[in-house]
């Protein structure tokens, strides 16, 4: 078990996290292209800029641990091991999608990989994560559940009830808030007097910590400790990661509400080159390895896209299945 004290990623963990960040970045960029090209229907919320959070947390979880994701959850699912091809096919609405084309971007699920689903109702996934953690406790499986949520979701009643219930029952769950400063088109200050969601942890008698969400080593230490505490039976932690989304709230959002300097400032703190440098300092990733890794990831995303494009549409009658067991 990891010691929460000041856990640092091993070489393998670090390279895995770096690769996952790349994968998410390329995957999301490809989704944006395919959406613009009209290949992906519906609404799409991308997470470019926020990759470090999902990638680091995902690397710290067991295969049988669970992740409850948000509407901005492609990366959260991929980092937990969801198959990019089946996720892409789901976004394309194809029969081969992870949810047979019934869910789409806001309802991605891959239970075998511990991906409990993205969710279209803000805040609604937190209570469900409390439930999987409850089952882990009652069944004694040792599983940990991670519930991702946003700064905006923190103001929902569902989030409050879930945080309190998880705390009073000391359940093995970690609440990871990706605070990207905006809910849709509105800055956080319009939604709350407090700017740090982790400051709400004491209201539940729960430890709360805020970290730079674009700094993998900082995230790693904080998440390792929170997961460790949860698995050990000491209960939930509210872990807040300060980060930023590069693209609009949804694809097609003109982003008129954000000062361009703000975006530039955050781009300067892009988590991927930052962690690349960190790896470099340790001599853990030579340039040619980096190039190979980039090529591998690109190929994986190409394969996923090809798989999605070449997959059949669901039969219309499939809409009638899966309502009841």
């Amino acid at each position, binding site marked *: 078990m990891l010691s929460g004290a000041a856990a640092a990623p091993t070489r393998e963990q670090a390279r895995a996290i770096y690769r996952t960040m790349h994968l998410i970045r390329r995957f999301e960029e490809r989704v944006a292209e395919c959406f613009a090209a009209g290949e992906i229907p519906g609404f799409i919320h991308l997470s470019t800029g926020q990759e470090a959070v999902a990638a680091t947390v995902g690397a710290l979880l067991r295969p049988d641990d*669970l992740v*409850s994701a948000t509407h901005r959850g492609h990366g959260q699912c991929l980092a937990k091991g969801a198959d990019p091809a089946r996720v892409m096919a789901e976004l394309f609405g194809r029969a081969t*999608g*992870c*949810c*047979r*084309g*019934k*869910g789409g971007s806001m*309802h991605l*699920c*891959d*239970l075998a990989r511990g991906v*409990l*689903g993205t*969710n*279209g*109702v803000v805040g*609604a996934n*937190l*209570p*469900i*994560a*409390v*439930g*999987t*953690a*409850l*089952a*882990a*406790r*009652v*069944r004694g499986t040792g*599983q940990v*559940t991670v519930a991702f949520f946003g700064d905006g979701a923190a103001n929902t*009643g*569902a989030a409050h*009830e*879930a945080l*309190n*219930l998880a705390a*009073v*029952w000391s359940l093995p769950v970690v609440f990871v808030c990706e605070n990207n400063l905006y809910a849709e088109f509105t800055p956080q200050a319009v939604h709350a007097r407090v700017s740090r969601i982790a400051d709400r942890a004491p209201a539940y008698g729960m430890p709360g910590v805020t970290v730079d969400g674009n700094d993998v080593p900082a995230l790693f230490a904080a998440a390792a400790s929170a997961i460790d505490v949860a698995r050990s039976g000491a209960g939930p932690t509210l872990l807040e990661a300060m980060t930023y989304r590069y693209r609009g709230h949804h694809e097609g959002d003109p982003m008129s509400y954000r000062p361009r300097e703000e975006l530039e400032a955050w781009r300067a703190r892009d988590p991927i080159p930052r962690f690349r440098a960190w790896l470099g300092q340790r001599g853990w990733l030579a340039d040619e390895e980096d190039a190979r890794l980039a090529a591998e990831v690109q190929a994986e995303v190409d394969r996923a896209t090809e798989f999605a494009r070449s997959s059949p549409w669901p039969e219309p009658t499939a809409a009638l*299945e*899966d*309502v*009841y*067991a």
Partner: protein
Amino acid sequence: MPETRYVKAIADALAEEMARDERVIVLGEDVGAPGGAFGATRGLVQRFGKDRVRDTPISESAIVGAAIGAAASGLRPVVEIMFMDFIGTCWDQVVNQMAKMRYMFGGQLRLPLVLRTHTGAGLNAGPQHSGSLEAWAVHVPGLKVVMPSTPADVKGLLKAAIRDDNPVLVVENKTLYAMKGEVPAGEHLVPLGRADVKREGRDATVVALSRMVHEALRAAELLAAEGVSVEVLDPRTLSPLDREAVLASVAKTGRLVIAHEAWGPCGVGAEVAALVAEHGLASLRAPVRRVTPPFTPVPFSPAMEKAWLPGAERIAAAVREVLGRCA
């Protein structure tokens, strides 16, 4: 057969299923030591422990969400929502998560979970503690809804609901908790989706829900004295509705009255009437009649609530009407 109270039949069903399957857990406000606000969980925590019988904070969304997550992870939770009037506080979890999860995830999981709650006016509990809101759930695919009218039915339907691999709302009636009735000894299951003819008759069909079943039976007695033979059909399960049973009874009697405590517009009575207008029109020998309370909240004062609540007399009058015997 032994006589058991409705509320005791619930506690027995829970205890039997918890003993039978350790995946069954119970969650809700005061369901532990207090045994629930109405005693339906009495004795469970002493027998099965605090891990499986959990008192919750006043957090209906978290309670229901927790049950959903637990069901998705291998447990078979039974949640109690203290009054169905409060279900609006967790309605999003019920309709957007519980009802849709299996479907929108392409059938990857099953959600074996039961949500117990109760409806019913007549105790002067006032506008926020007396409602009958089952129709909202009947409107939602992915949910099953049962509404038992007797101790035997509540025991058998609750046990069947706990064993079902889908979310099932078990809608009890607070005014029936004290009612005594015969319950078959030993294992007693009532299949979901099967209506029950509570009284056979030839001249008119009364489809009645929950406590109204007993009012309909009283009405049938009154009418028998007038030489009218009334069939009382208790759907027991509202979703999926036993359409064949309704159509068969109307085919026999040619006349239909529907009685429930819920409001009329878009209620279960509307659905039953529509079913017959679509698939049983030829057998209808008279206009359908719905017996429901007036379209107002439930008044507190006994002086108003008594008149507000439909009963045997109003049901009998409706039957006379469809028989063209308006006095």
